[in-house]
């Protein structure tokens, strides 16, 4: 079966985002960018499904297609996924920062073209923090969704997914095709080896434009401003537990 894995190029998770002085957004000039950490987990799981590693049966997946929507440099993000073991890539070029609804519509168009049996993707991107695209894609396709996956088992045309929910775990079973969004605990992504990085350079990335898909990507939300959160006033170091307790009592925290 075929898996589609959407990936996003985002600010590196170790970088503290800084708001621009003119309040138009976050300053991304000269900032390290990387693959969204949740998307790495999705790519890793797709590759494990193909390799038949861990609890996955060998040959569960025979092709992994990676798709990204974004600027020209998002090619690097796709190359990273190819070096991890994906087979080919699609880049839908867009200089605009598309909203989740537009992204979901474009991905639905890619699904219509590629006809995957499964879409595996991150539960949220660490820039917009929306946690929406996977659920919206499932809705547009009228496919079942299994979000926040901590364990995935694919067998007999069904996905059995253990999900992280408030208060513990929940297990669902859904007929394929389905959309699964992955959580942190699903796996530990591999590092691409140098030979695999070299091999990835020969793998195909199809270059597309938003206009190729004929979907409405107009913004529904206008960002009026982006501001820095209130700064906490500097605290103090206390010498010992007794002093801490007396301070906490003074301020009414205890």
């Amino acid at each position, binding site marked *: 079966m075929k898996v589609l894995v959407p990936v996003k190029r985002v600010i590196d998770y170790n970088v503290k985002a800084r708001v621009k002085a003119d309040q138009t957004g976050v300053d991304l000039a000269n900032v390290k960018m990387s693959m969204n950490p949740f998307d790495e987990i999705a790519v890793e799981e797709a590759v494990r499904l193909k390799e038949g590693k861990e609890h996955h049966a060998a040959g569960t997946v025979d092709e992994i297609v990676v798709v990204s929507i974004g600027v020209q440099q998002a090619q690097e993000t796709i190359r990273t996924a190819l070096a991890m073991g994906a087979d080919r890539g699609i880049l839908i070029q867009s200089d605009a920062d598309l909203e989740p609804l537009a992204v979901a519509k474009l991905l639905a168009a890619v699904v219509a073209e590629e006809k995957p049996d499964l879409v595996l993707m991150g539960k949220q991107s660490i820039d917009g923090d929306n946690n929406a695209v996977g659920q919206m894609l499932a809705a547009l396709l009228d496919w079942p969704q299994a979000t926040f996956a901590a364990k995935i088992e694919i067998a007999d045309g069904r996905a059995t997914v253990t999900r992280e929910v408030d208060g513990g775990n929940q297990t*669902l079973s859904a007929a394929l095709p389905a959309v699964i969004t992955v959580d942190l605990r699903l796996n530990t992504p591999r590092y691409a080896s140098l030979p695999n990085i070299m091999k990835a350079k020969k793998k195909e990335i199809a270059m597309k434009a938003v206009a190729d898909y004929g979907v409405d990507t107009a913004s529904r939300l206008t960002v009026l401003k982006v501001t820095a959160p209130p700064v906490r006033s500097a605290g103090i170091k206390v010498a010992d537990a007794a002093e801490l307790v007396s301070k906490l009592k003074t301020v009414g925290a205890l």
Partner: protein
Amino acid sequence: MAVLVIADHDATHVRDTTHKTVTAALALSPDVDVLVVGQGSKGVADAAARIAGVRKVLLAESGELGHTLAEAVTATVVPLMVGYDAVLSPATMDGKNFMPRIAARLDVAPISDIVEVVSGDTFIRPIYAGNALETVQSSDGKKVITVRPTAFTPADEGGSASVETVTGTDAGKAGFVGEELVKSDRPELGAAKIVVSGGRALGSAEEFHAVIEPLADRLGAAVGASRAAVDAGYAPNDYQVGQTGKVVAPGLYIAVGISGAIQHLAGMKDSKVIVAINKDADAPIFQVADYGIVGDYKTIVPELMAALG
């Protein structure tokens, strides 16, 4: 303008997060109805009807709705939206699961995790792990919004709304297999007044139980954990506080052996008072802590227990 709030509940009790979401909804419109989806949830509907400001309560029950599967909740909510201009849910794992699905069905852009209602179409939400706040204006006819509960005060009790039954729909797309819920007598993490969290420095699950839990119990606090502690298996994953775990804003947050990575701070930096106990004086947690003690938790936590009497 009429607003629908999807209640958060455990089949017998309506959660505090619902009251907080009603507060956000009342900032949009005085006409706020609450929808209770579930199975055997008449008691929840009656409790929701007592929230001050609620106009009426709609109760939708069917088998699959008992597990709030996204497909079934969406199939139930979307037809109801003919009569509403906005639908709100707390940004719980359930709300995050079904609200974007509802939004896509309505062809609108969802607005995730709002912390402030500026006007009927303008909202403030955190982005980049809480390092920036975005003010967004929606041009959609209907709004689909998840609400960060810690940013709103709970609506009072004292209402007397009527309860109506509506049709619950099972979309039949996905099936519930089972669940394992962590049993705890402690306050719920999201609603607790005090939270005691442990990090990687604890070193083992045994140490986590032996150090963090007695301190939490002494203070009547909920227990939280950093991602590192959860990944290492010291604590269950629903204890995780941070960008991708729970967001808390208690009166007092005590971080034990937590360095204070960006992702962790995103989940607790709106706490009223933050205390850090860490042996590394340069740990980033001290930049947000109101009170810090530099030292080994192994000596400081027992001293703290003693000082508390």
